[in-house]
């Protein structure tokens, strides 16, 4: 499941692909990112109205048809910049990042952005954190080492995932582009 911060930015990223109705966004989100934890409609429409309020997205006129009235949302330039910033900036290296990193990679590939470069940056951020922890190991006592080791092993696992993913980007791109 994605962390709280990822949902609005992921929806915004999906809007960059093409202007969409809430219903279509939910469907796309659920099939790519939901992984068995679908978003509620309330969450989707609530997020869309907040994104509009903040100038990240803009709602088209209400369309009357069968069923309830529908609005098509489009991303704004500011929204696009926000998506770019989020994708390009490495997440703080900490355990249990898998959902955020997963969302970033898939979205970057969908949007034809340089996923390999983002992964390289993430990799550098992880290694930087590992260096800091290794420094603690070298200077500290056994208890410091024990704590630092916990972080080091988790970061190492993330790094392996990053490397595997980087090696498979071409294959992944085919899967998520249309």
């Amino acid at each position, binding site marked *: 499941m994605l962390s709280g911060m990822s949902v609005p930015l992921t929806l915004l990223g999906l809007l960059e692909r093409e202007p969409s109705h809430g219903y279509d966004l939910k469907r796309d989100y659920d099939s790519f990112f939901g992984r068995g934890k679908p978003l509620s409609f309330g969450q989707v429409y609530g997020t869309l109205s907040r994104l509009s309020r903040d100038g990240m997205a803009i709602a088209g006129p209400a369309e009357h048809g069968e069923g309830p009235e529908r609005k098509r949302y489009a991303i704004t330039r500011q929204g696009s910049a926000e998506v770019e910033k989020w994708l390009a900036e490495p997440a703080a290296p900490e355990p249990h990042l898998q959902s955020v990193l997963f969302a970033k990679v898939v979205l970057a590939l969908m949007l034809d952005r340089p996923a390999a470069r983002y992964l390289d*940056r993430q990799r550098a951020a992880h290694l930087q954190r590992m260096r800091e922890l290794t420094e603690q190991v070298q200077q500290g006592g056994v208890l410091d080492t024990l704590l630092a080791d916990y972080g080091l092993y988790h970061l190492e696992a993330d790094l392996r995932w990053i490397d595997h993913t980087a090696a498979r980007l071409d294959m992944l791109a085919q899967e998520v582009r249309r």
Partner: protein
Amino acid sequence: MTADGHDAVTGGPERIIEARGVVKSFGPTPALRGASMAVNRGEIVAVMGPSGSGKSTLLHCLAGILTPDVGEVWFDGRRLDTLSEDRRSDLRRDRFGFVFQSGQLIPELTAAENVAMPLLLSGVRRGRALAEAGPWFGRLGLDGLEQRRSGELSGGQAQRVALARGLVARPEVLFADEPTGSLDSLSGELVMRLLSAAAREHGTTVILVTHDARVAAYARREVVVRDGAVTSLTGVAP
């Protein structure tokens, strides 16, 4: 150069070794396709990348073991790749140290003789070479193992003997190719702690090839090799 590894003229860090656009093929197979990286004096740099990425080939080119098909290698302000095999061999013996994945100690010799070997090859007399090798046993936690042969050492001990051998002649650059590759994680950690402490103490530049992020974390920065080239983020020394 000043004692702390800074350039006396510019005050900036001094570049000690550099590969510029190195291309190297083995038969039809390209191992390096234009790899560039630079290392400052006294830096510990990790060279990382997946198997087959060309990272060991890059290390061998930097160390003058291989010469590039195209491109240049510079060491201490001079071209290294255009030197004769003899001159490169002298350079490797006098100014470089090496540690490889699995020790590669000479099995017929004692641990002390193995450590003393680079000094003996440089023409230092046996008595003095062994005397200089001695303190490394205490420094690397190998006290009492001086007379053992490699078959009588654990993997971690043998690797520490190999590390002492790599450092005994006070090389300016230590090349380490997967130095913990054959060790369990605790022995590997000990080797890396000792390696980085000794390098810092003597101001030794270390170029460390590893696929292991925990080992790379002992370095000050990392250079990532992918498909025979250094990725753009990491190749240049700060």
